[in-house]
């Protein structure tokens, strides 16, 4: 029964990913124009040469869209997403970039969610206190700032700060300084200097959302009987709050994670592009400018996969935290 349910769900997920990726491919192949990449070259290559090159890459708009789709789909079934407009393997390119995106996203997610949950919980414990009022106001302000504006504000702020101190403390471009010499300590410091601002840009909005949500959940739980019982049986206030109230209140926040994941992906895209990290998000934007149909389709596939994995992970975490789900 359970296995059948899981299997049906898994099949549904695979079908969803396949349809989403196919739609993205057809849309990209229909609107993007790889031929225009060659028309701006000087001297302009003869048409037969361009046709031959585009045929090699399965990007020729003279062959019917459906034929191109079948060729592409046959490759994808074998696990090959085709070639980029410059003839490199899309798989290799994305594999290299996935690590960058994963590092940025996991750091942002961890910092953002932990800060948000802690701030929200503390604000709820002293409702209408100073912290509660300040964080409520701040989260409203943060949620009104789009990521593209926030990232640029951070870059402007960092330039100003570096001028003020007279040293390059905060670095705003890339993940590491190319050609850096020195021991592992210097390299670690360099990475940290590059990481600070993108992490803030990514996690601030996340922290604001989570703190609002967690505050409301915590307020519902604080008045509950089981928290009073925990204190009545002699637990210290802190232990009762952390072990009984917070743990219960965190469960819905975990489920909420699946909803915020899409926003997180978009936020990562903007952050990577503005801070010059060579990850998937940057490639997403660049691939549209370079009419790179195969890369667009492959990134859609990765994004669809990631959204479904996030939904599954939220379910699994929910089960791990809530004994009722585990038993049922």
């Amino acid at each position: 029964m359970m296995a059948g349910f899981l299997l049906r769900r898994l099949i549904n997920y695979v079908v969803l990913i396949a349809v989403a990726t196919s739609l993205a491919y057809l849309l990209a192949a229909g609107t993007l124009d790889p031929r225009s990449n060659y028309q701006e070259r000087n001297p302009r290559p003869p048409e037969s040469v361009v046709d031959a090159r585009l045929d090699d890459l399965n990007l020729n708009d003279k062959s019917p869209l459906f034929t191109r789709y079948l060729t592409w789909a046959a490759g994808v079934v074998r696990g090959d997403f085709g070639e980029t407009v410059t003839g490199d393997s899309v798989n290799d390119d994305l594999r290299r970039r996935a690590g960058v995106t994963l590092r940025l996203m996991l750091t942002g997610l961890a910092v953002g969610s932990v800060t948000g949950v802690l701030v929200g919980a503390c604000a709820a414990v002293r409702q209408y206190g100073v912290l509660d009022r300040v964080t409520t106001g701040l989260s409203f302000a943060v949620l009104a700032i789009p990521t593209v504006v926030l990232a640029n504000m951070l870059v402007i702020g960092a330039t100003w700060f570096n001028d003020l101190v007279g040293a390059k403390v905060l670095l705003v471009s890339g993940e590491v300084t190319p050609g850096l010499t020195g021991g592992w300590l210097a390299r670690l410091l360099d990475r940290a200097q590059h990481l600070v601002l993108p992490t803030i840009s990514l996690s601030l909005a996340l922290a604001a959302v989570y703190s609002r949500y967690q505050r409301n959940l915590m307020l519902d739980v604080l008045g509950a009987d089981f928290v009073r019982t925990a204190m009545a049986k002699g637990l210290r206030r802190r232990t009762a709050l952390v072990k009984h109230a917070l743990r219960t209140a965190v469960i819905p926040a975990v489920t909420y994670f699946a909803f915020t994941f899409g926003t997180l992906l978009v936020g990562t895209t903007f952050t990577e592009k503005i801070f010059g990290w060579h990850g998937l998000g940057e490639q997403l934007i660049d691939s549209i400018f370079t009419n790179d149909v195969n890369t667009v389709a492959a990134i859609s596939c990765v994004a669809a996969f990631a959204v479904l994995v996030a939904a599954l992970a939220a379910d699994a975490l929910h089960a791990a935290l809530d004994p009722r789900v585990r038993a049922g």
Partner: protein
Amino acid sequence: MTLSREELARVSAGAGRLAVPSRGRLVAGRFLRSGQGRSGAALLALVFLLAFAGPLAGRWSHTDKDFLAFLQPPSALHWFGTLQTGADVYAVTLRGLQRSLVVGLLAAVLSTVLAALVGAFAGYFLGWTERTLMWVTDLLLVLPAFLILAVMSPLFSSGQWPLFVAMLALFLWMVTSKIVRGMTISLREREFVQAARFMGVPPVTIIFRHILPNLSSLLVVDATLNVSAAILTETSLSYFGFGIQPPDVSLGTLIADGTRTATYAPWTFWFAAGLLIVTVLAVNLIGDSLRDALDPERPG
């Protein structure tokens, strides 16, 4: 015995006078009593006034170029300064604000209507209707919206912004429609819906007359919060050159141009960015207080 028409009119008029304050008035009262709601509404009114009446006060239009003033700081002649092209920042910023507001409002209303219809039909008819509609919803949730909209951007050029609004709305409605579906499933078992069904009222009429009015609070709040979501998506797309296309301007394109000169000409960036932040803040404040005011469990 039948009442004459005049008597009927008198009775219903009297009932109206004696009735408790209407729900609309109750909600409006609650909304206006909260400081948050008041400041949000005032801010948004100011933003609208600035966007639509402001250009009349300025002496430059958004297409004018002042070839005697490139990248000049704010002055009496150019209230917000000028860009590198000599365009008046005040004029282009207000033009962009207009565009962003119109796009945001239309997309929000459209997506809420879509969410209400899809959710209510899925929840009321169940069976294959539900499975098909919810599958489409899941599919759109899985598709990366930003990427799809960006790929479609060549179609939005040359004054095709209504198409852009429609596409924007197409990627905003999914989560709400799932909530609407859940609420419809519980509503359809209620007595007043069953009574209507047994009287032979057609299903579509039931949905429009009984189901959707009962979800109006949720939908109003959703439409409000969608305005800010739509504005944020629009400006982000335009920032990267995928949304509103030149020669038209949006706050997103202005912010993108402004970042290049922001460090030595701050006026090119901060006016557009500031107005965008104020607009989104105002809409969020209104949405949040509306949610509180429409909460049926709240006293007063």
